C-alpha cells in the first residue's frame, strides 16, 4: 500500500481491551458530577447573575428618536426600508441572497407576508377613531395612483434621509427637519400631499403605544408572533444604537455577544468570525455564504473519522501520550 493510500485509508488496528480493570462506581461519579456542576452554576449565579435588559418598544423609539421613527415610517410607506425591500420570506420586493445558482431564499417563497405600507403605516392609522382630518388624508392617499403616492412619500422622505445621511457622516444636516412640541416638522421642496398629516398622526399613535398594539393585532385574541414590530423597529435606529453601546453589532462579533460582560453564545465564534473578514464583510450575500461555509464545516465535523489527514493528526501530534501517560508508564512502552 502506498503512503498516499495509507493516508486516505489509515489502518485501524484498534483492538478490544483484554488487560486489567480497576473498580469504578459510574453512578457515584454521575452524582458527584451533578453536585459539582450544580455548585459551579450556583456560584456563577451568585457572583454574576444574568443579564435582563428591558426590551425596547415602538413607543420608546418614537418618544426618544422621533425624527428617526418618522424617517423609518416614511420609508416603510414608499417601499424603500430594509424590510420593504427584503424579499422572501416577507415579500416579493427583493430576490433575497444567492450564491451562484443557489437561491434558497427565493425558492422557499413568501411565508410571512408583510406589506410595509399597509401593515406598518396605513393599517395602524386606520385604527385611530374620530379624526376627520386623518380620515380624509387616508382617503386621499388610498385613492391616489401608485405613482402619485410614491411622489408624495418621496417628497417627504427626501429631507429626512438627507438629515440622516448628514448625521451618519457627522456633517451639519440641512435645516429642513426639526422637532417642535413633540412633533417632527419637515420642510419639503415638493408637494407631499396627505403624507405629512399621516406621519404626524402615526408618530402621535406610536408615542401613545398604539403602534405596538396594532402591529400585534391579528384575527386572534392571544399573540405570540412579534415579527412585524421587531422588523419595524429593526428598520430604525434605536435597536442598533443600543446594540452598539453593548458591543452587539455585526462588526463587533454580533449576536455571539450578550448585553453586559457576559460570555453570550461563545460557541458561535466561528460563525461570527466570517463576518469580520473580506470578502464576506462587504458582500451583499454574506449571510448565505457564511451559512454555506458553516454547513460544509458542520458536515466535515461530523465526518472527521472519514477525512484523510484530519483523522491522522491525533496520531501525528502525540497529545495522546499526555492523556494516557499513566498507561504508557505502567506498560513501559510510550
Amino acid at each position, binding site marked *: 500500500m502506498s503512503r498516499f493510500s495509507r493516508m486516505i485509508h489509515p489502518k485501524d488496528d484498534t483492538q478490544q481491551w483484554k488487560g486489567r480493570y480497576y473498580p469504578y462506581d459510574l453512578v457515584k461519579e454521575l452524582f458527584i458530577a451533578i453536585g459539582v456542576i450544580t455548585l459551579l452554576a450556583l456560584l456563577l449565579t451568585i457572583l454574576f447573575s444574568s443579564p435582563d435588559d428591558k426590551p425596547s418598544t415602538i413607543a420608546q423609539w418614537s418618544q426618544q428618536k422621533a425624527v428617526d421613527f418618522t424617517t423609518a415610517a416614511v420609508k416603510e410607506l414608499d417601499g424603500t426600508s430594509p424590510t420593504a425591500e427584503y424579499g422572501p420570506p416577507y415579500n416579493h420586493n427583493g430576490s433575497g441572497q444567492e450564491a451562484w445558482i443557489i437561491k434558497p431564499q427565493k425558492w422557499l417563497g413568501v411565508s410571512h407576508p408583510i406589506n410595509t405600507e399597509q401593515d406598518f403605516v396605513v393599517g395602524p392609522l386606520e385604527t385611530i377613531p374620530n379624526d376627520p382630518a386623518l380620515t380624509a388624508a387616508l382617503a386621499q392617499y388610498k385613492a391616489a395612483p401608485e405613482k402619485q403616492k410614491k411622489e408624495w412619500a418621496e417628497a417627504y422622505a427626501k429631507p429626512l434621509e438627507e438629515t440622516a445621511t448628514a448625521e451618519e457622516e457627522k456633517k451639519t444636516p440641512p435645516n429642513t427637519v426639526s422637532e417642535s412640541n413633540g412633533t417632527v416638522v419637515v420642510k419639503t421642496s415638493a408637494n407631499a400631499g396627505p403624507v405629512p398629516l399621516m406621519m404626524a398622526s402615526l408618530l402621535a399613535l406610536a408615542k401613545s403605544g398604539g403602534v405596538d398594539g396594532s402591529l400585534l393585532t391579528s384575527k386572534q385574541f392571544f399573540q*405570540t408572533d412579534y415579527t412585524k414590530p421587531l422588523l419595524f423597529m429593526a428598520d430604525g435606529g434605536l435597536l442598533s444604537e443600543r446594540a452598539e453601546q453593548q458591543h452587539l453589532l455585526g462588526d463587533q462579533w454580533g449576536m455571539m455577544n450578550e448585553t453586559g460582560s457576559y460570555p453570550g453564545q461563545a460557541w458561535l465564534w466561528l460563525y461570527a468570525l466570517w463576518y469580520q473578514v473580506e470578502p464576506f464583510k462587504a458582500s451583499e450575500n454574506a449571510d448565505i455564504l457564511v451559512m454555506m461555509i458553516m454547513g460544509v464545516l458542520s458536515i466535515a465535523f461530523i465526518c472527521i473519522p472519514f477525512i484523510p489527514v484530519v483523522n491522522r493528526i491525533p496520531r501525528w501530534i502525540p497529545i495522546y501520550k499526555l492523556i494516557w501517560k499513566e498507561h504508557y508508564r505502567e506498560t513501559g512502552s510510550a
Partner: protein
Amino acid sequence: MSATPTTPGTAPAGPDMHSWTVKVREAGVEALPPEKLLPDGQPTYVASWIYMFGVASIASLIVIITSGSILALKGPAWWHDTSIGHFFNSIHMWGVELFFFVMVVHLWGKYWMAAWRGGRTRVWITGAIIFLVAVPTALTGYVSQQNFDAQWIATQAKDGLNSVGVGAFFNVTNFGQMYSWHILLLPVAVVLLVSAHVLLVRTHGVVPPFELEKRPEFAAAADGAPAPDGAAGAEGQS
C-alpha cells in the same frame, strides 16, 4: 395479552419466541447486557482528568433541564418579575455556559484520542451531532428571553436563517414558535441523541490507547488480571 395464564404454584412456560416484546427484550439484553450497561470497573488506561468531561456534559444537561423545567412551570414572564425567577434563569444560563464549555473540552479530548477508532465512528458522529443540535437549542433560548437580547439576536439571526430558506419555517422573530422549539422539540432531540451516544459508548467501550497491539495486554488470550465483577469487555465512561 394473549399469553396463556399459568396455574398458581407451577413453573411458568418458556418465553413466547413469537412475542415482539420478547424479541425486543432479548435483542436489547444481547446488545447491551446489564454488566456492560452499568459496569463496576474500568480499564486501567482510563486514568486522566479528560475523562471527566463526558460525565460533566451529562451533569450540565441535567442542571439545564432541571432549571429549565422550573422556569417552564412558572411561564416565560416569571423570571423578569421575581428575584427567585431571575435566580433560576441565572442557573439555567450558567448551566448552558458550563454545558458548552465541558462539551467542547470533551470533544477536543476525544479528537486527540481519535476516539472513533475500533468501530466507534457512530459514537463520534452522535457526539458531533449533539453539539450541532445544542447550538439552535441555545439560540432558541436566547430569542425566547423577552428582553433586549432576544430582540437584537432575533433581528440579527433572521438574516442568516432566511438566506438559506430556513426562515420560511423557523421564524426567530416569532416568540411562540421559538419557545416551543426551545422547551420541547430541541431538548427532546438533545436528550435522545445523548441517550443514543451513551448507549453506543457502553456498547463499544472507551477507545483504547494507540499502539496497543505491541503490549502484552492485547495478546489474543485474555491472560491479564481478572476484571472486577461485571467489568469484562465493558469499558467505562464516555
